[in-house]
């Protein structure tokens, strides 16, 4: 996902938030990963907004995508220039209303923004893990989130919400811990990557690994593979946009010049934009984390891992109520993938709503202000919250 961190136009915000961390899986009780490898200790960075109610029934878990973090909404300090990455959706009176719900968002396992990942110190060597970090999966990320919720004393999640790779975590939650998940909102996502999505990820990984500074993942004491990571990010950005959005945003406009330069400078605005995004990204993200997270996304296969190849069988493991949303111009996670997911949910007898939002902005549309997305998320959460109360009383 791209970064669209903006101030709320109306100035509404959840206010100050604090990044916390939770450590578990201390050796010898390491976390056993899907691959069979052991990892420990594990630290998960997380943030919460809103208040957990007395019966702990209003918890909402938000799962971030590839380059996101636990900072979903609000500000770290009074003079913090930027709010969290989904501040337009999460806050008082917003789509995910912090006056009503207790929101938890954690940095995924394998990332580099507070949680354990390849740039974390390996207790065995007292050096950063680098490629000694075991390959983690979407299932492992969710397992770490589950440990966090156990620690917070949350036994039921009113809703798990996320887009893109965050959406994969949402689906994984529903089938792995069905007794915990009341409802789910997977946005612009899929049960498994298409060859196209894997192909783009592979080109991005190759860009990193081709950078001599990458040095087989061992670069933490010297120059880092910034060029490779920047190119990887540039590729990512192309896939997050669409032909339409690039045409509207850039067209063939030149950057600060009236004519082409007959050299290899950034002539076109789109070139300049991609270079800027790439350069900005390397300041906050670790190249190895990029490799691990994209690999986890490529490996994810809900049908295979949970349904012997059948999505219907996989979804029959959950009773969650679903709101599935796709966007017309998303070519990374096209609507046909969401429709296939919805079809399997119907066949499993699940309560599912689906909407394809008309949007020019490609995959990134799920992060951009959308009145209809906000209204749907809000209405859906209100419904499942009401029904949850009734069902609890009926028992």
């Amino acid at each position, binding site marked *: 996902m791209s970064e669209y961190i903006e101030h709320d136009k109306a100035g509404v915000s959840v206010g100050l938030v604090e990044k916390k961390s939770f450590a578990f899986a201390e050796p010898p009780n390491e976390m056993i990963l899907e691959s069979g490898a052991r990892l420990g200790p594990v630290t998960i960075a997380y943030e919460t907004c809103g208040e957990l109610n007395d019966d702990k029934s209003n918890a909402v878990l938000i799962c971030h995508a590839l380059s996101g973090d636990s900072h979903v909404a609000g500000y770290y300090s009074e003079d913090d220039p930027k709010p969290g990455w989904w501040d337009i959706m999460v806050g008082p009176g917003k789509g995910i209303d912090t006056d009503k719900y207790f929101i938890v968002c954690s940095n995924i396992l394998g990332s580099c923004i507070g949680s354990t990942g390849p740039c974390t110190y390996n207790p065995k060597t007292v050096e950063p893990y680098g490629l000694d970090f075991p390959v983690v999966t979407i299932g492992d990320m969710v397992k770490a989130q589950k440990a966090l919720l156990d620690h917070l004393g949350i036994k039921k999640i009113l809703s798990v919400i996320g887009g893109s790779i965050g959406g994969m975590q949402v689906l994984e939650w529903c089938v792995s811990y069905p007794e915990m998940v009341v409802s789910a909102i997977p946005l612009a996502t899929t049960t498994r990557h298409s060859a196209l999505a894997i192909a783009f990820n592979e080109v991005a990984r190759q860009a990193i690994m081709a950078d001599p500074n990458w040095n087989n993942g061992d670069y933490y004491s010297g120059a880092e593979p910034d060029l490779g990571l920047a190119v990887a990010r540039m590729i990512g950005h192309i896939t997050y946009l669409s032909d339409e959005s690039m045409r509207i945003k850039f067209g063939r406009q030149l950057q600060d010049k009236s004519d082409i330069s007959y050299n290899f400078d950034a002539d076109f605005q789109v070139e300049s934009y991609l270079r800027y995004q790439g350069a900005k990204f390397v300041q906050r993200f670790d190249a190895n984390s990029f490799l691990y997270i994209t690999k986890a996304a490529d490996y994810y296969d809900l049908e295979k891992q949970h349904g012997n190849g059948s999505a219907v069988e996989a979804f029959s493991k959950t009773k969650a*109520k679903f*709101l599935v949303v796709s966007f017309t111009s998303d070519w990374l996670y096209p609507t046909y993938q969401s*429709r296939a997911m*919805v*079809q399997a949910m*119907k*066949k499993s*007898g699940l*309560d*599912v*709503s*689906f*909407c*394809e*939002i*008309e949007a020019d902005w490609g995959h990134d549309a799920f992060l951009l202000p959308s009145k*209809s997305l906000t*209204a*749907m998320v*809000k*209405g*859906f959460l*209100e*419904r499942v919250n*009401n029904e949850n109360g009734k069902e609890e009383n009926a028992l």
Partner: protein
Amino acid sequence: MRFDLQIIASWIEPGAKVLDLGCGEGELLYFLKKDKQIEGTGIERVESKVTRCIEKGVPVLQGDINEEIQDYPDDTFDYVILSQTLQQVYEPAMLIQSQLRIGKKGIVSFPNFSCWNVRLQLLATGYAPITKQLPYEWYDTPNIRVITLKDFRKFSKEVGFKIIKEVAINTQNQAKSGKIIKFLPTLFATYGIFLIG
């Protein structure tokens, strides 16, 4: 709520499982959920209407009714409703058969093309009739079929489904009020509503 929807709602028992094909903004389902605690879901093609449904707390799938109806297992619902849409369906027999496959009962309503004003318009003016129920010119109408109450009864025999109950009503297009027509319904009813099984 539209008068025909009020009649349809009165036929549905509390707690039933209901699918509304072409549910619009989910008016009927919203009412049934609140008033009769039904478990309901809708199918609607238009994004803005789908958004409104979900906003109101009515589960809905955006899609084409002819395709979306295929995925449900047999007898998933107690009632499958097709209100004021039959006249726009390309393959009505197939749709009604699917309706009765996935639902124990079906409810179908449509504008009655044998109403006296329709007959009179064609006879008197020689132009294709335009009424409040069917307000389009021949070249811009989404209503690709003209159906009368008698046609539907004949159709039920040909396709092989049973009409359990039928009510003929006289109401304007979106009106909340109307009346049930018992005397010469084929002439005086603007809509027919059929419970089928």
